[in-house]
């Protein structure tokens, strides 16, 4: 199976750079599996766990929004933040999840403040993504 170079870059640093067999991301249009030789493309990403296969194993990385750029020679993920499973603080993520759920419930009751609602939603997504990644990793 041919491999390709995957790079995950955030504003702070390069999180990941390695030859991989396959990448599976969640784009705004739906899930997207990328193998070597994929057509060059660019698409925005959702907040979701990202699956990477290399060395016969599956690995998960929490990717919070951003883009994937597929090129002939490599795939680059540009994310505002990306976390490997070993760097995730599960307790904190769980606390954040509970907090976000509470805020969503409150916003639903008051039926206003869309900004607060959306913010809570985004942080809920993040927390869930983190928890999933750390469970699988």
């Amino acid at each position, binding site marked *: 199976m041919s491999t390709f170079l995957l790079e995950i*870059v*955030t*504003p*702070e*640093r*390069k999180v990941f750079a390695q030859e991989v067999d396959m990448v599976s991301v969640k*784009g*705004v*249009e739906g899930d997207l599996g990328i193998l070597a030789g994929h*057509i*060059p*493309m*660019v*698409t*925005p990403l959702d907040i979701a766990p990202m699956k990477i296969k290399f060395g016969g194993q599956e690995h998960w990385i929490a990717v919070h929004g*951003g*883009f994937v*750029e597929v*090129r*002939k020679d490599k795939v*680059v993920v*540009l994310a*505002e*933040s990306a976390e490997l499973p070993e760097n995730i603080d599960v307790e904190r993520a769980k606390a954040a999840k509970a907090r976000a759920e509470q805020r969503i419930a409150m916003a639903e009751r008051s039926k206003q403040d869309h900004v607060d609602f959306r913010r809570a939603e985004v942080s809920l997504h993040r927390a869930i993504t983190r928890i999933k990644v750390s469970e699988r990793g």
Partner: protein
Amino acid sequence: MAKGMRDIKRQIKSIQSTKQITKAMEMVAAAKLRRAEEQAQAARPYADKLKEVVASIASGTKGITHPMLVKRPVKKTGYLVITSDRGLAGGYNANVLRMVTQTIRERHRSNDEFVLFVIGRKGRDYFRRRGLPIVAEVTEVPDAPTFADVKTIAYKAVKYFEEEQYDELNLFYNQFVNALTQVPTEKRLLPLEDDGTDTHTHAPTAAYEFEPSPEVVLEHLLPKYAETLIFSAVLDAKASEFGAKMTAMGSATKNASDMISGLTLTYNRARQAAITQEISEIVAGANAQG
């Protein structure tokens, strides 16, 4: 004479302890400078990549427009000023603030024609004292800023532009040249300049597919790009801050050393004079008795 000597001694001691402090601050700034430089380096790939993708969209597809690329007649201007929280950094804050004030005075006649975004306590206090309109501020940015620290203000600055609350956004900060030189700079941030220079370098690398469409991708990408530019300016400014601080504290240490050596000389002279006088008094006394 003995009293004068004690005063000099006390002065030497006090300068000595000031020198110790400035010396320590210099070394701390040097260490932080190195880290800030590394961080600025680490942030570069992300900004470069985004720029590359934006350029390739711009070159690969024709006839796409986005509010952030369009030049509007300028009725109101946004300024984002990056300063530090703490002083003792030589002319670091003064330089950039002077530049902002001058620019504003040249370009605008009333305070309704512009708004300010301020990062850093020094800048905030300065503009507040002068009663200039600050719409958003961030203070206590850590020495090693993360994207999250800057995101709120960057997001606001970009969003207000999109909402046409102002028609251009300029950035003021100290650009880092090296540890000794920091240049206060003005940089046009929005609308994003399509100068065409960077599209040439990697023109037809790959014809991308855009999902769902180039417009949507651009819509996501451009605000991110602008935010990233702000973030890298903040990192640059941080490096400058430590550079300026290091230089300022270095010269303070040097001045303290000079003062100490001058005072030591005076002290030794006074001591010698006192001894000489004492001897001549004894000799005179012995002569009188003999």
